[in-house]
């Protein structure tokens, strides 16, 4: 036992007692519950309920997939960025998203998932990514709208995840959140430049915001009364706030930001509700959300095809690096002998 590596999971601990040792299972469950109740973190080698592990793997994998698929709509504009400054910024942001994916895949691996298996599930559609990335980036202003709204919504979702009960996921989120604020600010600045520019530039910024606003609100997931896994995730302290609560928070933040941009949000029902202390907003088109989730969004097919192509075209790099490492290690082995 003491020789097990840091990441080796304690999956077997549930049956670590003698066969049929129900008391041991019970004790493990109680220790787990007490740890979560005390707001302490569960760490990779701790015993945890199978369903907790499965929920985390599903959520973290989906999150990781979203980060790397999310590179595509923005990378689409790198070669056409209007200045060297904007190009350098965009490359840094897209590189950050790759990094976020890697932090998250590592976190999933601490739960016993394998990297190759996760990627395979993404490529074959057995695991999902955020539906927002199935929308196209039609103009340069979309890069700004994504930074402001999509990264903004992601931050609203991710800040509470920094206190998630699973240690490696929480730590990955701390790192991610530190990096996200640059993403949001560069997007806002980009939109501001366009909004204050020529009439055409202003119109382009407004058009991008009009297209990205509603899909961004959908990023928080279905309404609370239709959200299948929410209650259990809240009890496990994986999730800290409900979908609707986070969505409200996001809307409240965005309205004054849009005003400062000199742009409007495409919702005639949007108005301050003195009584509730929040903005009221119009109904979300959940049929569209479900269609995109099912694979019928404008870019679903393209995103996965491009992702698989990148993976396949990179195979020779992975193979040669592995071959080099193998050759090198046998050589040093010989020299040492």
């Amino acid at each position, binding site marked *: 036992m*003491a020789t097990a590596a840091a990441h080796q999971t304690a999956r077997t601990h549930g049956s670590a007692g003698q066969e049929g040792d129900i008391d041991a299972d019970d004790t493990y469950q109680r220790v787990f519950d007490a740890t979560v109740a005390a707001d302490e973190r569960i760490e990779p080698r701790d015993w945890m309920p199978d369903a907790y592990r499965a929920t985390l793997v599903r959520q973290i994998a989906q999150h990781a997939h979203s980060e790397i698929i999310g590179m595509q709509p923005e990378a689409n504009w790198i070669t056409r960025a209007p200045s060297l400054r904007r190009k350098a910024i965009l490359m*840094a942001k897209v590189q950050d998203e790759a990094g976020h994916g890697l932090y998250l895949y590592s976190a999933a691996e601490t739960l016993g998932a394998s990297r190759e298996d996760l990627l395979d599930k993404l490529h074959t559609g057995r695991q999902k990514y955020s539906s927002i990335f199935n929308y196209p980036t039609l103009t340069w202003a979309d890069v700004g709208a994504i930074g402001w709204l999509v990264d903004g919504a992601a931050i609203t979702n991710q800040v509470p995840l920094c206190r998630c009960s699973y240690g490696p996921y929480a730590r990955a989120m701390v790192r991610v959140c530190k990096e996200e604020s640059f993403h949001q600010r560069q997007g806002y600045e980009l939109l501001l430049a366009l909004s204050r520019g020529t009439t055409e530039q202003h119109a382009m910024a407004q058009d991008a915001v009009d297209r990205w606003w509603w899909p961004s609100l959908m990023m928080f997931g279905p309404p609370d009364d239709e959200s299948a896994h929410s209650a259990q995730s809240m009890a496990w302290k994986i999730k800290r706030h409900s979908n609707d609560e986070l969505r409200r928070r996001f809307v409240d933040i965005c309205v004054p930001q849009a005003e400062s941009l000199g742009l409007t949000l495409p919702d005639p029902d949007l108005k301050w509700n003195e009584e509730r202390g929040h903005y009221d907003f119009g109904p979300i088109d959940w049929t569209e959300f479900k269609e995109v989730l099912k694979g019928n969004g404008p870019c679903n097919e393209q995103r996965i095809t491009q992702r698989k192509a990148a993976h396949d075209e990179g195979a020779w790099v992975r193979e040669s*690096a592995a071959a080099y490492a193998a050759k090198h290690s046998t050589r040093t082995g010989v020299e040492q002998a």
Partner: protein
Amino acid sequence: MTDTDWPLWEVFVRSRRGLSHTHAGSLHAPDAAFALRNARDLYTRRGEGVSLWVVPSSAITASSPDEKDPFFEPAADKPYRHPTFYEIPEGVKHL
């Protein structure tokens, strides 16, 4: 050969001189040299470190969470290892 054959490495970052290396996360790489380069790109994109260690995850020996209590027990009943254990008359300075 596929990328899953690339072993897992643990990355430790010294954030500045005078501090110890701290665990930052893990990554896959075919060998130590690649692991270092990947670690630089993944964990120090904003000057988070002045020095990096990469260690094969399989080389780490960890204490078992099962044995938590007995394993760390010897430390629990020795309060005399802490400075607060000792009563010193008031007014005695620099102690």
